[in-house]
């Protein structure tokens, strides 16, 4: 009733309605833990911080990508929100060690942060295994992921141009829906039409098939937690060349499970792609095998579930 009363007394706005709904859900279900998946949504749970700590549910926040690595760095309001609320949060789930470390800056306590790497359904992927690492006359480079500036496709296209200028025979495929003007213009501007294919989205099984057919997976991102799509490529056996942004170096051990280049550094990106292309067939196969082992050991679905259960129990 109090909740309804406060809604009626407050201004009608989307934010107030959301708060009303969240409070209702809280009152009806009385959860032991509230797990906030996106850090900025903590704003909707601010009311919980006024309840005495021994009777309120525990609050857990997931630390993921942009909302931790980018937004608070460039938006003072978000930074202020995190600084106020993070010290009161009971537990943090970090998708990578790097992002956990980043959260310290915004007031998260180190002993409350648990790194839980995402789990991959390897059984689903097992039917798509790359079996041949020989490169044909034109090397096939593949990227998968939505079009967003943080995915760095503009950098990948600059890299492709440099590879072509250096006389490399390469073809680049991007699987992502909703190609923006920026990418289309760059392809035209740099005369890359014949060397780039954009597939506006396909079923996941077809994406996996494409991964078995490609020669290199390229992750040109400027920011990531740990890109799931890289885990998939690694599980399938497609050699990965990735930027060293975010937590990527926790899965790509340079020269073992893949190759890393300095984020935003196009000559370095090109050098690493060339290194992979110039490696022997056995060399690329070795990359694929180490990558597969890494994913099995660090990103199994079973491990992920067990870690989460253990984490929830530890918070209670």
């Amino acid at each position, binding site marked *: 009733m109090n909740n309804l009363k406060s809604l009626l007394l407050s201004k009608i706005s989307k934010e107030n309605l959301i708060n009303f709904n969240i409070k209702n859900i809280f009152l009806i279900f009385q959860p032991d833990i509230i797990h906030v998946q996106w850090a900025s949504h903590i704003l909707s749970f601010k009311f919980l911080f006024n309840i005495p700590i021994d009777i309120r549910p525990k609050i857990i926040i997931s630390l993921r990508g942009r909302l931790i690595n*980018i*937004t608070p*760095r*460039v*938006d003072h309001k978000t930074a202020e929100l995190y600084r106020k609320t993070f010290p009161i949060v009971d537990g943090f789930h970090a998708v990578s060690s790097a992002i956990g470390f980043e959260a310290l800056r915004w007031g998260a306590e180190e002993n409350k942060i648990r790194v839980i790497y995402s789990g991959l359904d390897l059984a689903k992927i097992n039917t798509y295994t790359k079996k041949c690492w020989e490169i044909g006359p034109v090397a096939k480079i593949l990227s998968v992921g939505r079009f967003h*500036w*943080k995915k760095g496709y*503009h950098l990948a296209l*600059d890299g492709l141009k440099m590879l072509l200028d250096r006389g490399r025979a390469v073809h680049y495929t991007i699987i992502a829906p909703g190609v923006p*003007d*920026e990418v*289309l*213009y*760059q392809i*035209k*501007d*740099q005369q890359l039409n014949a060397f780039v294919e954009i597939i506006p989205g396909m079923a996941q099984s077809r994406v996996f098939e494409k991964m078995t057919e490609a020669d290199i997976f390229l992750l040109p991102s*400027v*920011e990531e937690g740990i890109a799931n799509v890289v885990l998939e490529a690694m599980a399938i056996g497609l050699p990965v060349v990735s930027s060293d942004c975010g937590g990527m170096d926790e899965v790509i051990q340079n020269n073992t499970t893949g190759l890393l280049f300095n*984020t*935003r550094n196009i000559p370095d990106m090109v050098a690493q792609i060339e290194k992979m292309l110039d490696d022997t067939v056995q060399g690329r196969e070795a990359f694929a095998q180490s990558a597969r082992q890494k994913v099995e050991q660090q990103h199994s679905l079973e491990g992920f579930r067990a870690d989460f259960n253990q984490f929830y129990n530890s918070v209670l």
Partner: protein
Amino acid sequence: MRIGLVLNTSPSYSETFFQSKISGLKYQGFDVILFAENKASNFDLCQVKSPPKVSSFFGIQFIMLLWKFFQLGLTAPKQSYHFFCLERNSGRSLKETIKNIYLNSHILPEKLDWLHFGFATTALRSEHVAKAIRAKMGVSLRGYDIALYPLKHPECYRLLWHNVDKVHAISNDLLELAYQNGLNSEKPVKKITPAVDVSLYRRETPISTFHSPLKIFTVARLHWKKGLEYTLEALAILKKQGIPFRYTIIGAGEEYERLAFAAYQFGIQDWVSFKGKIPHDQVKSELENADIYLQYSIQEGFCNAVLEAQALGLLCVVSNAEGLSENIIHGRSGWVVPKRQPRLLAEQIKAILEMDEQYLLKIRTAAIERVRNEFNLEKQQQEFIKFYTEE
């Protein structure tokens, strides 16, 4: 002579191009009427007519459609019928034709000598209006509409190219793009560049030697086409080479987060300031403090901001994107650097810092004189009069 100008919005005070065009034509005795969907309350340069509203409720829209058709039957029956025939003969469906009659019902009753579309995109769905009302059709090619819009809409200008009588382009490169997009090379064209009010853009403070740290400015919307990420990368190279600077970007836009994060990743976050949008007159006083002005765009129609910077005697470094390489004459009124190559941009800035002061003064003076002589409003107005009067 009566000229109808079609725009999306009535031009704001800072949009010198259309403001000056309209007042220039009126001064020469032309009658100008503006067709625009949105009209600013303080716009009073000429009469404005707006297209009818479109309702998302079918019933309401149907009644509005009948009412408009009834009105057209009284005010412009011949023109409407002529328009209908032209649309149908061009292969437009009956539904599309009816829609287009409705959308153009504010222009069809007008008696005009010229119907001029301020952007190519404003002519879409109106390609037959000029012919239907027995006016000549003009179109301006300005940047986005010719360099970007056709990327996702190939063939979108087929009917426009077929029907237009004269094309106005703000730069040679944009005209070249129009030819690539299907404009017939035999159609009459005229290049009329943007212009600045040189009486307003006059330096009021004396030129000083380079500040330390160096003051670098750009006026631009925070949009990918302005090439600000490449600019930041070039400035990061300068920092690595031990050249201290303060970089100010004047302008707002949707890509603030992208650019602020790029500045952070390049390690120059504390050396870059995003001023946001500030009033036009304040821009001028800010710019007077600049040592170097950068416009390292990826795509650019012509760029008024660079003309304004030159008029203030600033040392300008621009990319070779479309109109920019006509805006600045490399080595004479500034410097043109190939786009998307931050290393070259950094080298150019470094080279300027090592140039002789007398030489730099020559560049500044050449820039001021060139803008005064070639990009002044009076010249632009005369060119527009010729556009409509010359065969």
